[in-house]
């Protein structure tokens, strides 16, 4: 160990162990996971994202949502609280992220876990209100307002169908309306598609979950 060549070979070999285990192995094993076919619908699981949602992933990345929100329901061998809290029917597995271009696993829960937010909030309006004026949804929220994802514009003739319905203290001045930009629509499409409520071979959806909600 006191000579450079020996030291270098030692470093190389030791380094290789973790590299093989945490880089080569996931790349080869997990990286080769493919979607499974869905017997009920004839489609594939995880389901494909629609085009708008794919663009929404880019907005999710650039707005930095991953720094406050996780997208992983933890295994029950560690905790049941994620599932009991209603953040998912079952723990997340690697295959759930197959359709993402980037796995937004997250490491901090300043905000809620979002892996199944599409099953909890099914209406786009709820998302728009949360993004534009989170304080209107909850006064205690740490969530900042993403007003740059929206346009405040003058009402032309009739109020636009997309305009947000906001409480008076958050609404724009009379004669103006708030409409979502394309980025906002894409982001919301992505969030709406965040549902991992299907079963996979390695994650039986019913096995570890409480009774599924009755619609």
């Amino acid at each position, binding site marked *: 160990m006191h000579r*450079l060549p020996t030291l270098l070979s030692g470093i190389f070999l030791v380094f290789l162990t*973790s590299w093989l285990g*945490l880089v080569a192995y996931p790349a080869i094993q997990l990286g080769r996971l493919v979607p499974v076919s869905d017997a009920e619908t004839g489609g594939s699981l995880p389901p494909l994202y629609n085009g708008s949602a794919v663009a929404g992933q880019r907005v999710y990345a650039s707005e930095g949502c991953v720094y*406050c929100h996780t997208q992983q329901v933890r295994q029950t*061998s560690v*905790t049941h*609280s994620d599932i009991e809290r209603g953040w998912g029917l079952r723990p997340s597995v690697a295959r759930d992220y197959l359709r993402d271009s980037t796995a937004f696993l997250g490491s901090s829960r300043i905000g809620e876990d979002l892996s199944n937010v599409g099953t909890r909030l099914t209406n786009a309006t709820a998302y728009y209100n949360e993004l534009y004026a989170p304080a209107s949804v909850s006064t205690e929220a740490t969530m900042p307002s993403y007003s740059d994802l929206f346009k405040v514009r003058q009402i032309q003739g009739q109020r636009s169908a997309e305009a947000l319905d906001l409480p008076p203290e958050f609404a724009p001045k009379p004669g103006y309306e708030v409409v979502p930009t394309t980025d906002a629509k894409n982001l919301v499409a992505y969030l709406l598609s965040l549902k991992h409520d299907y079963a996979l071979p390695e994650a039986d959806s019913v096995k570890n979950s409480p009774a599924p909600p009755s619609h």
Partner: protein
Amino acid sequence: MNATIDTTHYSRTSFLDHGDDTRSIDESVRLPVLALFGNAIHWFMVAVLISLVLAIKLIVPGFLNFSWANFLSYGRLVPIARDLFLYGWASQAALGAGIWLAARLAGRPLASTRDRGVHLHTLLISATVLWNLGVVLGSLAIFAGYTTGVEWLEYPGWASATLFLSFLLIGIWAVLLFDRSKNEDLKVPQWYLIAGFCSFPWIYGTANLLLVWKPLSAASQGAVQAWFSGSFLSLWLLPVSLAALYAMIPRALGSPLNRGSLAPLGFWSILLLGGWNGIQRLIGGPVPAWMSSVGVVSSVLFLIPILIICINLLGIDYRKNPRVGRNVSLRFLILGLFSLITLGVIGAVSSLPMISAALHFTGVSEAQTQLWILGAVTFPLFGVLYEALPRLLGRECWSEKLSERHYWLSLVGFWLLIGMLVLEGLFTGLALLDPAVSFLNVSSYAYPFRFMEVVAQLLLLAGAMMLGVNITRALAGDYLFPKR
């Protein structure tokens, strides 16, 4: 030159001093090291300022939240601050510190002349320029929204490629020295430096290749990113810090390492476990069960090298050097050492599944990251800075008052930050275990701690400003502050 293996080197106090030759060694690396450190400090100050803004945003979400200034949003500032800490400050300062330590440890000038026709200074300065270019461009890209979305690797592919290229230039310098160093008898600090410098291109290159340049399927990205974050800290930045600790603490205390024969075991166990350490951020996550359990085991076993480092460095008989209390460099090194110990203990405890259930994703996780980046890496680098700068400039240059203030503000700010993050994590994490407690309620529990975190960040910023003024005076003092 003594060619036999010299086991007495564990019993020497200083490998950094070489009598009359010391000055020429310092001269040889002066420009590259000053360039690297100087740039690094600037980024540090920017990063600390942004961290303060982020801490305020957590308690006042509307702070600096303008619809025309989406680049000031929390989600964009977090990666900028984090990457500035990692690449702008820590990696660059580690490069500077590493080059100076390498030269001093080797006992010969390492960068003053040509080597096989390559002008070494130019090589290193070009590397510095490229590095900072990469950091600037990467940060601007994130401001504009062009981020990769991968944590700790947010710089777009072309920016990270610039950083990688810069490091390759430094690699060329290192390789050029290889021949001459082949038969040298290497001491513990040198092992750490070599391990760090060799690991970085492999770590950074692999992670960028598989996550940014040619991304893998997202099913496997989580594990690779976790590996990257752990290895980047444990196998690149930490070894440079440890090299500083091992080289400079015995020297400052005037006594050799305690039980130095344990040091090799510490070295190899850090190398072995450091690579696996990263996966602890995915305990319970969407990875096969064996990865979670490896994360737990490696976090707990990491106590072994930390214990060894404690024994080696804290067991040193410090009574031989009574001037310990006045030595700012030493105090920063010791601060770094204690951060490392705290980190090891918190890491080991919080990785156990029962505890991870409550504390994962809370302030405790953030506290671990801060203990790593600010504590175990930044403070030892400050220690090197305070020691190296006067030697490189050839004169006493630090203002004692400013140095003291920097130290105390950093100490109090840092431990306050860690304490508040841990308490915040404990309160919110334990509350969240009960599914009946609403998540929003729990956020409000965190408020008082987040308020104190703002105070802590203010102290850290004040300390950084002290350092900024201090180093500006040191470098340009004669011009800006002429002596009366």
